[in-house]
């Protein structure tokens, strides 16, 4: 066998150096990961791939085969005033702590982020994508749009009229007499009473292709 030069010591030193360099450089922080992933994420957002119609969300809510998680990322006053039934109050800075839970979600899990308009929910979506890669979507038009469709009953309304979606400023532009939280009618619209609404379905169920990495 032709004698290779004895590279064992240089080899060992190289490995130690490479590992040491790694320890010094560190793994990317969430902000850095964001930068790396930004181009792909931005294009998905621009194509509106992940914005779902309120009617689609309502179907998800009524679908027993989907494990639905609704993250409501708004501040507490809005959360208290009106929210969807079974939504979870998730402030943006608490998202990183969800990492373990995200990893443990079943195959049929779908996450939807909601805010008053779209801005905050979109922010939350970006962060989720960096933390994990859940099957996550954003409510199109936010809760203002939702309420335009599923209506606020006259007794609840302080002022009349539909909320304008033209200048989304992140506020809840429907006014309620009482802050009932998730006990408003529109918190869980009755599927028999709501108007039929057509939409383009965006939710795809992740069929986790047998990701048995080793001999699983």
């Amino acid at each position, binding site marked *: 066998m032709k004698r*290779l030069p004895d590279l064992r010591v240089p*080899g060992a030193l190289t490995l130690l150096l490479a590992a040491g360099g790694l320890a010094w450089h560190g793994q990317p922080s969430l902000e850095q990961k964001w930068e790396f992933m930004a181009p792909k994420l931005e294009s998905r957002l621009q194509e509106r791939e992940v914005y779902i119609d309120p009617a689609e969300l309502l179907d998800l809510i009524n679908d027993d085969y989907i494990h639905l998680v609704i993250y409501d990322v708004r501040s507490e006053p809005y959360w208290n005033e009106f929210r969807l039934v079974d939504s979870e109050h998730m402030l943006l800075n608490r998202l990183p702590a969800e990492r373990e839970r995200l990893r443990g979600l079943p195959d049929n899990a779908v996450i939807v982020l909601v805010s008053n308009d779209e801005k905050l929910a979109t922010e939350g979506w970006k962060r989720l994508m960096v933390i994990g890669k859940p099957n996550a979507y954003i409510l199109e038009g936010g809760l203002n749009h939702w309420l335009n469709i599923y209506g606020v009953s006259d007794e609840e309304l302080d002022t009349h009229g539909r909320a304008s979606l033209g200048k989304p400023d992140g506020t809840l532009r429907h006014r309620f007499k009482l802050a009932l939280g998730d006990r408003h009618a529109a918190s869980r619209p009755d599927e028999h009473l709501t108007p039929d609404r057509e939409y383009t379905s965006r939710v795809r169920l992740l069929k986790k292709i*047998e*990701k*048995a*990495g*080793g*001999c*699983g």
Partner: protein
Amino acid sequence: MSDDKDKPQYWNPYVGGVLLGILLFLSFFITSHGLGASGGVNRIAVSVQDLIVPEHVDKTPYIAKMAGGDRDPLNHWLVWEVAGIMLGGFVSGMLRGRVKLQTYRGPQISPRTRWAFALAGGFLMGYGARMARGCTSGQALSGGAVMSVGSWAFMFAVFAGGYGLAWFMRHLWQPEA
């Protein structure tokens, strides 16, 4: 090590290790998972079972996941990787004249004895690999490289088991003391 001319010219293990490490990295990079072997063998076994006793396969949950109903257990990347391993091993062997019908065994035992132990050892390996959800390629190498605690525990368990038994089975491999 004694220097006999009949000794096969194998690669320096460090060289093999570096190449394997690069391959493992590429596997993660391109396919998102590491290497695997026993899972592929598992699926081949299951597909044979499916040919012979399909209703039984449908009713046993562990197997049904792979082959129940319409599912084709062979339609899976692990099977292709296994095929590749055999092909690669064959070509490498051919290039060096090592493809020969023979039985590798320790000098003290007969081929028959070796076959019996190979069968028994294989059985334990097959069972153990399913139990551990992987084998040395999948769990130890791949899981170890990405720092899975279970994989490292597994690796040390394998060494413990092997070294623990080695002395008692030395007649299988060692020359007369």
